[in-house]
């Protein structure tokens, strides 16, 4: 049966969401992601491994809060992509063997808060960090679960060159390209005013 308009939950306004760096003070006992493939791994990660990995500086996890409740989380890490894993234009325009990126290590939303725009908020935050953060970051990278590939490609992510045959492939968003296109479009927009 098709869901009716009444059954679709309202998105939570991004202004009502906040994030905090994961700490031992956060109570994750009620945080439940779901039963789909990969959900258990994500839940195991946030409840068992995320804090230790953060202490080891492997990745930093931010929990997303709404009305005091943990409704999602995102783990980010510094990373790089070899130039031969990128489109050929990267192999000629720059001499570097690798390019700096931010890796979206994990991103998950509580099952009872799905379809409420929380995942988009967390991805927006990662894009914003890559774009305007304090370190150079040309690319945003993710190794998505099969059921979340569309979530990322819809945002402009494309497969890495050497992973096109992997299913699902590793994806990246070219932040430098975004910046250029975005700035160009703003310039064009200003010129037409």
């Amino acid at each position, binding site marked *: 049966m098709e869901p009716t308009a009444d059954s679709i939950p309202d998105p939570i306004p*991004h202004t009502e969401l906040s994030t905090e760096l994961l700490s031992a003070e956060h109570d994750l006992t009620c945080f439940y992601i779901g039963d789909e493939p990969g959900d258990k791994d994500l839940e195991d990660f946030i409840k068992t491994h995320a804090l230790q990995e953060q202490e080891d500086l492997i990745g930093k996890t931010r929990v997303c809060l709404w009305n005091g409740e943990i409704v999602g989380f995102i783990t980010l890490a510094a990373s790089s992509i070899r130039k031969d894993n990128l*489109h050929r234009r990267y192999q000629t325009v720059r001499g570097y063997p690798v390019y700096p990126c931010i890796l979206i290590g994990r991103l998950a939303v509580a099952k009872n808060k799905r379809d409420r725009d929380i995942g988009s908020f967390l991805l927006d*935050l990662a894009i*914003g960090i890559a774009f305007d953060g304090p370190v150079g970051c040309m690319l945003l990278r993710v190794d998505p679960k099969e059921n979340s590939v569309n979530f990322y490609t819809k*945002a*402009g992510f*494309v497969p890495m060159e050497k992973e*096109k045959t992997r299913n699902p*492939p590793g994806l990246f968003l070219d932040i430098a390209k975004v910046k250029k296109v975005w700035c160009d479009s703003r310039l064009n927009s200003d010129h037409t005013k």
Partner: protein
Amino acid sequence: MIKPMRLHVDLKGEDAKVFQNNRDNQTFTPQQLARFERARKVYKEHLHEF
């Protein structure tokens, strides 16, 4: 020659050609550009949390 590639679906022929051309000359839709603008705004609004 344009090769088929896998992204949840197998793209062949004209579909693969269009997809590869889009990737090689990647542009972003107006919706994606609006989203990037929103993303920058979200980050700036939440910067104090970091």
